[in-house]
């Protein structure tokens, strides 16, 4: 039965055209996935369905839901439908819940608003719904607050909120993007189970082909406000009529070509590294407890090698990065850069520091918004004793910008004038300018769209071939790590649980945690 039928939907906000001629259907008991990169209009399509559009939006076309045109009915009627017949799950579980209300009250609120039950009954429904999403009463009483739950558990609460009234349609906007791979697999399983049990339609919006490939029945691929290809998943993946589908597919599985040879000599050697955080005191005069974020970690990065570090959030990856970069004081252990030891807890000398640079995850937060690109890129020159001045400095900046595929005139722009991918190129330029030997990439491609990600990976591979760079590539994304690294380490709770050649680790994982990670990661190949 067709529950939702979108026909020739057009949307513009102000003078900007957002959606063009979008048509989409959703059937009860089926999962429709809408795939697209950022700015493709996939979220706006969802907002059109329940009319949660920003001010100044002009819509035309038809959105038939359950026999009613959602574009024609009044706001009052819409309020009745939202939450009751259409549930919605948002991307960020950390902000989707009210931090000062208990989870029980928040789930019950949806029920109460629609006048479906008395207060006592609403709480009973809330309890049942939380049980259904895998939060049993024994561990998760209704009186829990959001901050007491992990990201995955919060997302379960958000889902409970959306399905409390058993809606006919559930819209999930990037429901697993902010979650770790193992949690992501569980949430996807839960959503599938709910669709089966309730016979509701699920509109799953995602940027990740791998996520939806194994879950969805139908798929629609969006680009620049248009659906370029749609149909049953198997058929779309088998035929791939549109070039963009092919490009997206290729980018998702992109493996850059690398020819760099690893030398024997290590550029970075870490032995027995320990980093403790002091936690708040439990009693007024007690000794404050400690959290061991990095526990006896030892490894080395050889010259020209690309070493991967994989782990889920909270495993100590970022703490390790900060320790290596000499930003934090460590409790014990030895860091050797290019054969010279830096004793733990001491400052890293400038001449060692200039051998390594870093690229951070967030392309928006890693630049001072008040400086022009020329100044931003030239910042590491501070580490050189004879840093070029004047025109020489400018030439060095321009040369590096060209090296990462930017233009020389970009040097005079501010950072907000660039897209995420361009900013990440500038971040790489900043890391490259003093010709370091090791670049630490801390989730450097995680925030990027797949096609941009593929370009950045190519750039990194090409730079390492040409300049003999070594990478320490830190990521939670297994497919990216597999594509770009020679060896990989798996980290869990501050410890390295497995190390080995990348292909060997991925093909025959030894540690049970590595196995769990690889099993949970969405794989595209299975579909074809």
């Amino acid at each position, binding site marked *: 039965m067709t529950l939702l039928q979108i026909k020739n939907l057009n949307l513009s906000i102000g003078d900007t055209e957002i959606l063009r001629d979008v048509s989409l259907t959703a059937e009860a008991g089926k999962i429709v996935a809408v795939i697209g990169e950022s700015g493709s209009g996939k979220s706006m399509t969802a907002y059109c369905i329940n009319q949660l559009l920003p001010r100044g939006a002009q819509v035309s076309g038809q959105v038939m839901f359950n026999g009613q045109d959602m574009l024609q009915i009044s706001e009052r009627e819409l309020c009745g439908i939202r939450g009751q017949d259409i549930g919605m799950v948002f991307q960020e579980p950390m902000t989707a819940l009210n931090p000062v209300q208990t989870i029980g009250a928040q789930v019950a609120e949806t029920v109460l608003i629609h006048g479906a039950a008395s207060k006592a009954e609403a709480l009973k429904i809330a309890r049942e719904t939380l049980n259904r999403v895998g939060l049993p009463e024994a561990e998760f009483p209704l009186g829990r607050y959001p901050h007491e739950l992990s990201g995955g558990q919060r997302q379960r609460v958000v889902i409970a909120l959306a399905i409390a009234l058993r809606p006919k349609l559930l819209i999930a906007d990037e429901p697993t993007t902010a979650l770790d791979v193992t949690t992501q697999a569980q949430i996807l399983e839960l959503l599938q189970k709910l669709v089966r049990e309730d016979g509701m339609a699920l509109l799953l919006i995602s940027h990740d082909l791998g996520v939806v490939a194994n879950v969805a029945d139908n798929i629609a691929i969006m680009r620049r406000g248009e659906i370029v290809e749609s149909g049953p998943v198997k058929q779309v993946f088998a035929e791939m009529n549109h070039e963009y589908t092919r490009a997206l597919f290729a980018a998702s599985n992109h493996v850059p070509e690398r020819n760099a040879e690893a030398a024997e000599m290590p550029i970075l050697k870490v032995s027995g590294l320990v980093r403790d955080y002091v936690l708040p005191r439990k009693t007024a005069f007690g000794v404050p407890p400690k959290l061991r974020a990095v526990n006896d970690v030892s490894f080395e990065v050889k010259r020209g090698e690309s070493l991967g570090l994989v782990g889920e959030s909270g495993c100590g990856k970022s703490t390790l990065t*900060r320790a290596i*970069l000499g*930003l934090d004081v460590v409790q014990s252990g030895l860091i050797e850069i290019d054969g010279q030891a830096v004793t733990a807890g001491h400052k890293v000398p*400038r001449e060692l*520091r*200039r051998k*390594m*640079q*870093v690229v*951070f*995850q*967030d392309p928006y*937060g*890693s*630049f*001072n*918004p*008040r*400086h022009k690109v020329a100044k931003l890129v030239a*910042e*590491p*020159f*501070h*580490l050189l004793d004879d840093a070029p001045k004047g025109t020489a400095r400018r030439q060095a900046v321009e040369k590096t910008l060209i090296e990462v595929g930017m233009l020389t005139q970009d040097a005079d722009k*501010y950072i*907000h*004038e660039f897209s995420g991918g361009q900013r990440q190129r500038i971040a790489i330029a*900043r890391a490259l300018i003093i010709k370091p030997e090791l670049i630490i990439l801390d989730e450097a491609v995680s925030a990027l769209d797949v096609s941009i990600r593929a370009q950045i990976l190519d750039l990194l591979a090409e730079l390492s071939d040409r300049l003999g760079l070594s990478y320490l590539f830190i990521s939670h994304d297994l497919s990216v790590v597999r594509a770009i690294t020679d060896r990989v380490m798996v980290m869990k709770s501050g410890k390295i649980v497995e190390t080995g050649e990348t292909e060997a680790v991925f093909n025959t994982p030894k540690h049970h945690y590595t196995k769990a990670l690889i099993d949970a990661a969405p794989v595209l190949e299975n579909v074809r």
Partner: protein
Amino acid sequence: MIKAAFKMPGFTIGFILAMTFVLAALVSFFWTPFPTDIVDVPNKFQLPNRVNWLGTDHLGRDIFSMLMVGARTSIAVAVVAVGIGMGLGVPLGLAAAARKGSLLDEVIMRGNDLVFAFPALLIAILITAVFGPSAVNAIIAIGIFNIPVFARLSRGAALSLWTRDFVLSARVAGKGAVRISAEHILPNILNLLIVQGTIQFSLGILAEAALSYIGLGAQPPIPSWGRMLADSQTMASFAPHLALFPGAAIVLTVLGLNLMGDALRDLFDPKIRRGRE
């Protein structure tokens, strides 16, 4: 930059208002319609007329001339007081933020709390009680009160900036706390400081008026807007223009400064500036 500023109506209006008073203060050094230190009692309580443009006060002095000379005191007090507050408060706040949680941070911030614990007027009375009432002492008193305002503001804003990735990359580039504070933190909190600066500037003018009102600011015969208000209060029922004109001068100066401050804040933000082009 200057051209862009004058394209903003707020800045232009604010600039004209503020400059009018600055100009009046400057001109008063060379020329005023009437001398302000000569009493002409028979000519008292004149309403605004062709000779005395804004009338005369209870001693027959020309109000227009008094306002011109009074602008000197008000502007000088506010400029120096904000200068003291910013010059000492911002570095203290930045230092506290750079060494968050250290003894230095504690000492600076608890020192601030100590100053904050006393009302501004009380500090002023304290200082004038020790050193005697004068415009200079009023400036120092208001300036001291401004220090914790700027220290707290800059520490709070700097703390959130210290966690940003661009500060991390500056640290990776080997830059020290002083350099990072000057290059990365300060430019990013400048908009806050400018807005707070204009607010403190207007508060400074008001504080000087308040101090003069209770007789602890500029001493007679030096005119000041606050003292003119204070003098006029017993006569407000039959000569309201005595209070009206100095009051209007204070309001217009403060308004002009706030308009300028708002516009400058937008101008210093490259994102907003681009949106306006």
